[in-house]
């Protein structure tokens, strides 16, 4: 009965989405306040309906109702509760429900917190949101029903893919979806602005916090995913250039570009058409990612069970949303009031260069991701380009971008004093040179890693230097100046500093990773990076729904025991799948990563060890970047600064406001 209730709630949400899409849009065209006002309650009703559906499916997973086909295919009564809950989004239908639920949450947030928006813009943006919801709800109801029943119900379910049975599943997909789907906000506002024919500073100020929220969730989501892949896939890698990873990287690059170009719209009333285009593309990349993951056109380790029919459905949706948006762009964008021209050597010029680099990087990743498909359609077979392609193309774009990131914030708006900016970077240049020298002294002279380390040092010191210059750190009253510094400036410092830290980690772990693979009998040992590891024993144990093979490995350095590592192999009999659980010893500056493999049949076991210098900095850096997003989001101009509302009678005592 409850699944039927969920199904009905989905159908109801479809109807509500149709109303929310049509009437407010019509009302906005006719300037009819009553019709426009429908958008807000409709967005709330839609959220309610979808939450009911979500709750119904969650209930089916929790109580293991195997008469629901999705539950029977992806859950099992022996699974721990957390994986029965998270199993909801570990499959195609359930993850779509999560997708529309998050879409509805964002829509309701615009309705609830968008009081400072001009009513017409709000009505139109909510109508576009509803149009997106409508398509995906129809997709669920007609081609991917999560509430489909099985008769007779099987006594027990098949299992959730064991690789997904990890605490990471509880956080990674919801975070990632908050990012993907959050980009729909920028998209909806862009469409609404194109219909209105007006993009101005106020528009940018409304769009930017939503983009920022989506961007920080996407950053955190990618970070969690990378960490998860690192400890669970057992190869010691943290990024595989898998199509599905690329599907999250492309929207991230576009969203990063959008964040920066929206500043130019806000401050200088320029780059409007380009910003609108980026808003469309950022969400467009999200949709392309959804298509790639679910249609089976590209081979990937992450792909959901592929189904060409579903692929066709998403392709049609994509053609309507992206194609429609770009057609509207081609028609309306030429009529946007052009902003002023600006000097190439200025803050806005630097932001434009940032955008060109990021757009090129996104195009590079897109080409690499689609290359197999391009050849396949030409009948040339399915091949992949792997890390060699990305190392040769993506790195040469991103490293100069990171280097320029240190310069941009030092340039002033309109016309910058480049010589002055460069002279303020002397300290950064010194740090970069010192960092490269140190790396050369420690690890030797391959050029690319040294460049990476130098760029990381340059960006970190440049960012700190900008912060020190802004707050005049060494003069009296610096604390007060720091407290008065806008949160958005804090956010920038954190995000750029985080990027520098992440680059340090990426360079170090990619360049100086060591590995040691050997067959060991208990009592025998191997060496890696100055450590000695000795296989003590291999034993068996039982998990809730799997058998464990667990090795005890003593890790030693200079004769002293550092720690005992217990890497595991888990065999899930229901799914007939084996997973590896790496054991990781971290010093903070490096990880020693051990994995137990197959027995060699002669009493020995394959043991793999990896030494990963600086690897943890990747995730620390990424989380600092996301934290920068959070801090920036709390900037007072987003809380109270929207122009209309500022003019209304809300008076902030000057001292208090400034101190916030």
């Amino acid at each position, binding site marked *: 009965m409850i699944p039927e209730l969920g199904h009905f709630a989905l159908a109801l949400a479809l109807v509500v989405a149709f109303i929310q899409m049509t009437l407010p849009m019509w009302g906005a065209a006719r300037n009819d306040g009553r019709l426009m006002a429908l958008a807000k309650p409709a967005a709330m009703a839609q959220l309610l309906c979808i939450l009911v559906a979500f709750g119904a499916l969650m209930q089916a997973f929790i109580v293991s109702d195997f008469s629901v086909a999705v539950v029977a295919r992806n859950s099992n009564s022996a699974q721990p509760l957390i994986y029965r809950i998270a199993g909801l989004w570990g499959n195609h239908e359930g993850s779509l429900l999560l997708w529309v639920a998050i879409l509805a949450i964002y829509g309701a947030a615009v309705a609830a917190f968008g009081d400072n928006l001009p009513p017409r813009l709000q009505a139109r943006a909510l109508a576009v949101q509803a149009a997106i919801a409508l398509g995906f709800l129809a997709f669920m109801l007609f081609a991917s029903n999560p509430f489909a029943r099985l008769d007779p119900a099987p006594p027990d379910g098949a299992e959730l893919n064991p690789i997904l049975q990890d605490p990471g599943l509880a956080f990674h997909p919801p975070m990632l979806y908050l990012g993907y789907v959050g980009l729909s906000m920028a998209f909806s506002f862009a469409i609404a602005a194109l219909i209105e024919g007006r993009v101005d500073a106020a528009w940018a100020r409304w769009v930017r916090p939503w983009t920022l929220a989506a961007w920080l969730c996407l950053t955190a989501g990618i970070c969690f995913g990378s960490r998860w892949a690192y400890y669970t896939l057992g190869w010691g890698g943290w990024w595989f250039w898998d199509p599905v990873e690329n599907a999250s990287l492309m929207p991230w690059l576009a969203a990063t570009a959008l964040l920066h170009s929206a500043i130019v719209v806000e401050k200088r009333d320029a780059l409007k058409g380009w910003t609108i285009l980026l808003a469309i593309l950022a969400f467009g990349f999200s949709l392309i990612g959804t298509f790639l993951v679910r249609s089976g056109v590209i081979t990937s380790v992450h792909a959901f069970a592929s189904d060409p029919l579903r692929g066709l459905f998403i392709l049609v949706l994509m053609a309507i949303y992206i194609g429609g948006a770009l057609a509207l762009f081609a028609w309306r964008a030429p009529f946007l009031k052009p902003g002023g021209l600006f000097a190439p050597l200025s803050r806005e010029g630097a932001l434009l260069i940032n955008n060109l680099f990021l757009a090129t990087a996104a195009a590079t990743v897109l080409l690499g991701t689609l290359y*197999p*498909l391009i050849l396949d359609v030409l009948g040339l077979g399915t091949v992949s380009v792997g890390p060699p392609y990305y190392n040769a193309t993506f790195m040469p774009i991103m490293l100069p971008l990171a280097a320029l990131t240190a310069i941009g914030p030092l340039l002033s708006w309109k016309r910058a004093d480049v010589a002055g900016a460069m002279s303020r970077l002397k300290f950064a240049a010194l740090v970069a040179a010192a960092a490269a020298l140190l790396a050369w002294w420690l690890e030797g002279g391959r050029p690319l890693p040294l460049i990476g380390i130098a760029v990381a040092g340059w960006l970190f010191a440049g960012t700190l230097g900008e912060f020190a210059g802004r707050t005049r750190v060494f003069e009296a009253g610096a604390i007060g100046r720091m407290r008065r510094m806008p949160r958005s400036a804090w956010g920038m410092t954190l995000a750029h500093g985080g990027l520098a830290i992440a680059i340090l980690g990426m360079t170090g772990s990619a360049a100086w990773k060591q590995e040691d693979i050997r067959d060991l009998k208990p009592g025998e040992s191997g060496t890696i990076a100055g450590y000695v590891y000795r296989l003590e024993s291999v034993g068996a144990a039982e998990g809730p729904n799997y058998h464990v093979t667990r090795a005890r490995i003593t890790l030693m350095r200079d004769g002293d025991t550092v720690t005992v590592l217990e890497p595991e192999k888990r065999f899930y009999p229901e799914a007939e799948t084996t997973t590896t659980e790496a054991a990781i010893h971290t010093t903070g500056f490096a990880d020693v990563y051990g994995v137990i493999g197959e027995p060699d049949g002669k009493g020995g076991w394959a043991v793999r060890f990896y030494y990963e210098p600086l690897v943890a900095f990747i995730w620390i850096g990424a989380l600092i970047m996301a934290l920068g997003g959070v801090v920036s989001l709390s900037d007072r101009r987003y809380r109270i600064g929207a122009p209309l509302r500022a003019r209304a009678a809300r008076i902030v005592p000057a001292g208090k406001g400034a101190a916030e």
Partner: protein
Amino acid sequence: MSRSKRLLFVLPLAAFATLAAWFWMGLAPNRDPSLVPSVMIGRPVPAFDLAPLVAGKPGLKSDELKGRVTLINFFASWCVPCRAEVPLLMDLARDKRLELDGIAYKNKPGDTEAFLAELGNPFTRVVVDDTGRTAIDFGVYGVPESYLVDKDGVIRFREAGPLTPDVIETQLKPLLAKLSQ
């Protein structure tokens, strides 16, 4: 607004339309494999001399390909279709009429070893093309890619992408029967 400037705004739409058309063709269940033959077919193998993956094992030189039929498979541990192809290669390796040699394309030796240890090693020799030079000389599109070389060291067959049971039965094996006479 000038005409050329207006065209600029249509560009994104045109690019997306191309992409969507490509996706649509990608979805077609029985795509027409209008095979473009490799220019290398009928030509002698390019000269190469590659070092073995594991020190002490034999390497592979182009001169050594004379006098036997060889299937050369370019692969890498980071390539998903390569993983899928290994079981088929394991079957092929049992065929005494050919020698199956693997060239690890731009792959760290440790990764290659882990890959072969995990999935099984179908190859008689495993050699390393670290720079991708040999792959360029062969005209490799990407990995996996396989070349059948006859007793005179001439390339007779090329498959870009993973071998499939169908390709093995209908193309590779008949050709092999002819070449091994």
